[in-house]
């Protein structure tokens, strides 16, 4: 999952980005509205966290223009404006959620997870694929009820694949959703992470669920195995 944080406060940028990255979200940061719009328009983000009062372009303008381009990227408005008209205006412009400063980081994380889940069409906070259970909120994977210890990156892979069960996901797509622009990615970083993930799942007694589809990428399902 990849998140774009558009926020002009450097302190908030740093702490939110750190928290999101440690929770397994690749997070990109920009400090002004125009740049935020440019990045959001690329469509490679699952969630955009958007402040309203921004240099160069107001957050509401960013949202309006983003929606005008037909983008359906989930947007969480983050602002110190707490009046009902402010919230209504943001939601009417197409924001998926609204969080007023100051906030608890856990609440921000929960809201990001919720709107990301909705964006992927999953109403539930857990996704079951055979004996594998992916707990989106708890950031945990379980095999037959037993917890599997995964790194944030590994959990990000299994979460993304779980959101696309049965659909092949390319390495490039995984990369773009797992790594932000600051991450130092080696050419086989995704392959290495998938390999490690498979090994951990297998050790937990899980049958092979992550399959490689040559020329397409990876697919998570319980039926086929093509390698």
């Amino acid at each position, binding site marked *: 999952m990849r998140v774009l944080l558009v926020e*002009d*406060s*450097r*302190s*908030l940028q*740093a*702490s*939110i980005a*750190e*928290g999101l990255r*440690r929770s397994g979200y690749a997070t990109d940061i920009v*400090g002004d509205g125009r740049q935020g719009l440019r990045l959001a328009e690329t469509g490679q983000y699952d969630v955009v966290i958007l402040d309203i*009062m*921004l*240099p*160069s372009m*107001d957050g509401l303008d960013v949202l309006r223009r983003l929606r005008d381009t037909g983008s359906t990227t989930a947007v969480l408005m983050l602002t*110190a*404006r*707490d*009046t009902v008209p402010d919230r209504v205006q943001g939601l009417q412009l197409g924001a998926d959620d609204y969080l*007023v*400063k*100051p*906030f*608890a*980081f*856990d609440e*921000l994380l929960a809201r990001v997870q919720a709107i990301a889940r909705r964006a992927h069409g999953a109403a539930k906070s857990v996704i079951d694929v055979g004996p594998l259970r992916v707990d989106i909120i708890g950031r945990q994977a379980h095999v037959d009820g037993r917890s599997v210890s995964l790194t944030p990156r590994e959990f990000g892979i299994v979460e993304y694949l779980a959101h696309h069960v049965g659909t092949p996901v390319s390495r490039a797509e995984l990369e773009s959703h797992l790594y932000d622009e600051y991450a130092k990615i080696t050419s086989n970083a995704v392959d290495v992470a998938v390999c490690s993930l498979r090994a951990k799942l297998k050790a937990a007694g899980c049958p092979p669920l992550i399959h490689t589809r040559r020329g397409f990428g990876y697919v998570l399902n319980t039926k086929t195995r093509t390698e």
Partner: protein
Amino acid sequence: MTAIRPYSIRTVLEWRLTLGSISVLAVGGLTLYAVMRVALTAEFDADLLSKARALAAVSRAEPDEPGHVEFEAAAEALTEFLPRTSPNYFQIWFDGHDWVVARSGSLAGEDFPAERPAHVDADGSAVMDVALPDGRAGRAIWLRTIAFPEEVSDPLTGAIRTTNPIPILVAVATDREAVDRPLRIVATALLALGVAMGLGTVVIVRLCLRRGLRPLARLGSAVGALDVSRLPAGLAIENVPAELEGMRDRINELLGRTSAALERERRFSGAAAHELRTPIAELLSLLDVRLRWPESEAHCIASMREARTIGEWMAEIADTLLRLARSQHAATVACPDPTPLAPVVRKALERVSQSVAQKRLHTNVDLDPAAACSVDPGSLGSIVENLLSNAIIYTPAGGTIDLVVRAHEFAIRNAPVDLTESDLLHMFEPFWRKDEVRTSITSGTLHVGLGLSIVQSLAAQSGGEISAVLDSSDAGTRLSVRVKWPR
């Protein structure tokens, strides 16, 4: 506790006008009745008097029988005094005696039905109401007069014989019907007219008051219907009478000013809350993340340092807000001795010299060494320093700031980044900053946006005026902020 129901102007006026009108009508009717009663009674009494005089005229002192009075009325002249239905009555006495000279046949030998009056008027008459022998209400007149002697000519000698006049008392009584009947008709007519006019007055008063007070009622309803939580800019009431026009205009003016003040208050509260929320959010987010992922001691120390910086920034915001509050609520302090401007400006330049140097700014000072103004040194220093700090923040690196110091005047000019005419309308509002960027100390910008508000308040408190003008020329746009004090 019983709530006192407010009285209604219309109801009070209705009652007062109705009762007043009815009272006037009643007094008028009673006066008219009284006048008519007096007039009719006077006419009636005059008629009685003429009857009494006529009876006296036919009473003659008899020359052949001294001390004897002869009553010689023709029979046809006395028909009204004969015994019959509703007769009149008379009786004639020797004045001062009970000796009767004559009495009407209607009395049937009885005495006149009333006591003689104790006093009579100058013309010798007295009138009073009496009860007639047949029970009717009547009116009687007593006339004290003289029975003159008849002159008799002796047929033999041709000598004229006469005697002395004899005082007599004539009393005539008749029923009052001739007076009472027309008075009853008048009273009935007046009563009917009074009731009709009273009812008409009630209707007319109600209609007139309802129509006349309608503009007042509309104004009252409009004011009463005001939603104090969402005040309109004014009352939408047209065609008010001249008496209410001033009130409506003042109410509209008051509403406009109140709305503007509330809007300013709302913006200020919102902005203040916003300014404080951002650093609080920074602090909470920083602590939440560090508590969840403590990592190394070095990480924690770095976070604590950052938290302290944010705390310092919050303290700066609180201090600035307090300064603004003090400047807005400080009483005007008279400064009897003019404060020289030059030392104040030099001191302010010295205090901001580091910022000027960091941005590589140039300062041109056009200073009248003798310039002074009647402002206390503390306020003057704060005004000059805040204006200088603001100019430094908004002037691009390497730019120029011009200061002009004259008697009772301080002006500062700089080339601000991206400032427009519309910005001038808001730049003295608390927390206003160009492009509304709410930055914090961690964003690298130390600017709360209260400096110009403080300057404006201090200038106003010291009797001065502040103005901002944007001049555009080939050399670019320059902002001039000028503070002038009265001489």
